[in-house]
């Protein structure tokens, strides 16, 4: 099945405002077949590449979007897998998007058509879970689909990691996550994308925050030949809070693009957004941070800080901060910079005898340190630091 047959709506192109810097080449002829259910052999192969388990996390493994009972921990009550065609009719949230609202929902729509399973997480009132979801892409297409809802007062710590089973196989991942955070509920969400350098990766994350809901999101993207993240968040409830931090690290010829639209639709909504990107070699980073404060959201605050570092002669960063405000009662700040390593800082370290490669690595590490520091679980933070240390030899500070 080709793209033309999958949907009446068209594939995004670089002419679309929010897709200018995404790498989309080749998608028009890509065959978006549903993923193949993993065999025992595939599962065994994945087992051998899984990262070491962190004891305090309940592990869930999805192979090409399919839940692997064999590699996952026993599911606690409240977590379930729904095979797509058994979803009750009143839960049409995914299939309703078959005709997408806009081109930004295109990949989510495609996911809703092809994902054979939806991994559903429901946290009852006042419950607490700590969950690790590993999404492993092995070959061809992969459609992980997560549907997460936290009811009133629930707390979820979620680590979501995207990897490949091999270092070379070219895969296409199309992840769709729907997250609803209920009144007074809290999610602490860490997302790590480190697929191999042949992979293509797309994700769509839709978040709704209810009254006094709190969402802390840390995203670290360093993998895939081409990646694109679309985040569409709505502060639907009053006094909801979002802390959103992302680090994007691109090297070689990688293209890493993100569009984040945050809508403040209710009074007292608060957003703090921080993006840090480092592009080296010929890599390209795109970031479009679009914050809207509607007339229904007086008393909101919206802070946006976007910084990119270019360390390659041919590296490129395209950042776009956007604040769109329709109320007078708002506190908003925004800033965006793109620059090179600071020569004064570099010389200071060299003058102390620190080798140039290490000094540069230390400065790069320092550039994203504020994002990494927001990862709340120490073991997860250390693990991510270790996995990034290859990219910053001598830079990760213990």
């Amino acid at each position: 099945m080709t793209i033309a047959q999958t949907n009446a709506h068209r594939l995004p192109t670089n002419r679309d405002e929010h897709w200018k810097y995404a790498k989309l080449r080749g998608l028009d002829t890509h065959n978006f077949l549903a993923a193949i259910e993993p065999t025992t052999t595939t599962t065994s192969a994945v087992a051998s590449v899984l990262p070491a388990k962190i004891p305090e996390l309940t592990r869930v493994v999805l192979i090409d979007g399919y839940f692997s009972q064999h590699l996952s921990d026993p599911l606690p009550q409240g977590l379930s897998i729904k095979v797509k065609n058994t979803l009750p009719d009143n839960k049409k949230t995914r299939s309703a998007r078959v005709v997408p609202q806009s081109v930004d929902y295109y990949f989510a729509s495609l996911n809703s058509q092809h994902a054979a399973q939806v991994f559903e997480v429901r946290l009852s009132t006042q419950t607490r879970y700590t969950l690790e979801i590993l999404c492993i892409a092995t070959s061809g297409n992969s459609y992980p689909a997560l549907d997460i809802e936290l009811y009133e007062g629930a707390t979820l710590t979620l680590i979501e990691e995207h990897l490949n089973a091999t270092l070379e196989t070219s895969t296409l991942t199309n992840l769709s996550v729907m997250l609803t955070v209920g009144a007074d509920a809290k999610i602490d969400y860490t997302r790590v994308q480190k697929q191999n350098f042949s992979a293509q990766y797309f994700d769509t994350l839709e978040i709704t925050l209810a009254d006094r809901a709190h969402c802390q999101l840390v995203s670290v993207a360093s993998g895939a030949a081409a990646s694109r993240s679309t985040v569409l968040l709505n502060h639907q409830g009053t006094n909801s809070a979002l802390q959103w931090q992302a680090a994007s690290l691109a090297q070689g010829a990688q293209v890493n693009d993100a569009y984040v639209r945050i809508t403040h639709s209710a009074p007292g909504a608060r957003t703090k957004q921080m993006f840090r990107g480092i592009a080296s070699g010929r890599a390209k980073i795109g970031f479009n941070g679009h914050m809207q404060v509607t007339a229904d959201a007086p008393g909101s605050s919206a802070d946006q800080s976007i910084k990119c570092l270019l360390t390659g002669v041919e590296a490129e960063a395209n950042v776009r901060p956007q604040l769109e405000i329709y109320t007078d009662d708002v506190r908003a700040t925004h800033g965006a910079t793109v620059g090179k390593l600071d020569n004064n800082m570099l010389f200071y370290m060299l003058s102390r005898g620190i080798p140039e490669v290490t000094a540069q690595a230390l400065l790069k590490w320092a550039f994203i340190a504020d994002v990494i520091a927001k990862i709340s679980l120490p073991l997860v933070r250390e693990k991510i630091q270790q996995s990034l240390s290859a990219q910053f030899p001598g830079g990760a500070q213990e």
Partner: protein
Amino acid sequence: MLKINNLHATVAGKKVLDGLTLDLPAGQVHAIMGPNGSGKSTLAYVLAGRPGYEVTAGSVSFKDQDLLTLAPEARAQAGVFLGFQYPVEIPGVNNVYLLKAAFNAARKHRGESEVDAFEFLELVRIKMRLMQMDEAFLSRGVNEGFSGGEKKRNEILQMLVLEPALAVLDETDSGLDIDALKIVAQGVNTLRSPERSMILVTHYQRLLDYIKPDQVHVLARGKIIRSGGSELALELEARGYDWLTQV
């Protein structure tokens, strides 16, 4: 220790050093004074190898090797230390981490094994007590949010830890109150030894009340125009530079 011969240097195409010659034997402390724009900081940067400071003629020999052929980090590893006039803030790079990395880089250069974090912390604590610095400084970003005086103390702390053969201190006394000046001077004096040499770049004689130089040089228009003992600094304090420069 250090022999500078007929050194010429330019910054952004402008001639700043114009035939500077200086001989600094091992174990000696020389003060370099001079009016603004005379080339004092340029000399310090040229010795440390700062990019943009181009040597157009002359030579600098440090412990019988050609210093000018070495990269900045190689100069530091060989034992050259520059105390900055304006120490740079590096948010996100931990103070103790920078110190340990610098300390181990020098050890590695000497063919010695690197020290671990625990061992290093023991060492640095001793030096911090000498500089009357709180241990909390170690976990902060390099010079991040430090006051002017704290930055200068941090420079001397780094020098105490690295124990360089040649220290070039560029206006280490500027911005210090009298108590901080005494502490900084104490740190410097602690390191004085027959194997170590120092250049103190300063505007004011008061630093030399606490650190007694073996020689004082006056730098003007990119070259040394007068040298003498510590009494020269007193004379400069009393008479200014005009009587030397208006020739």
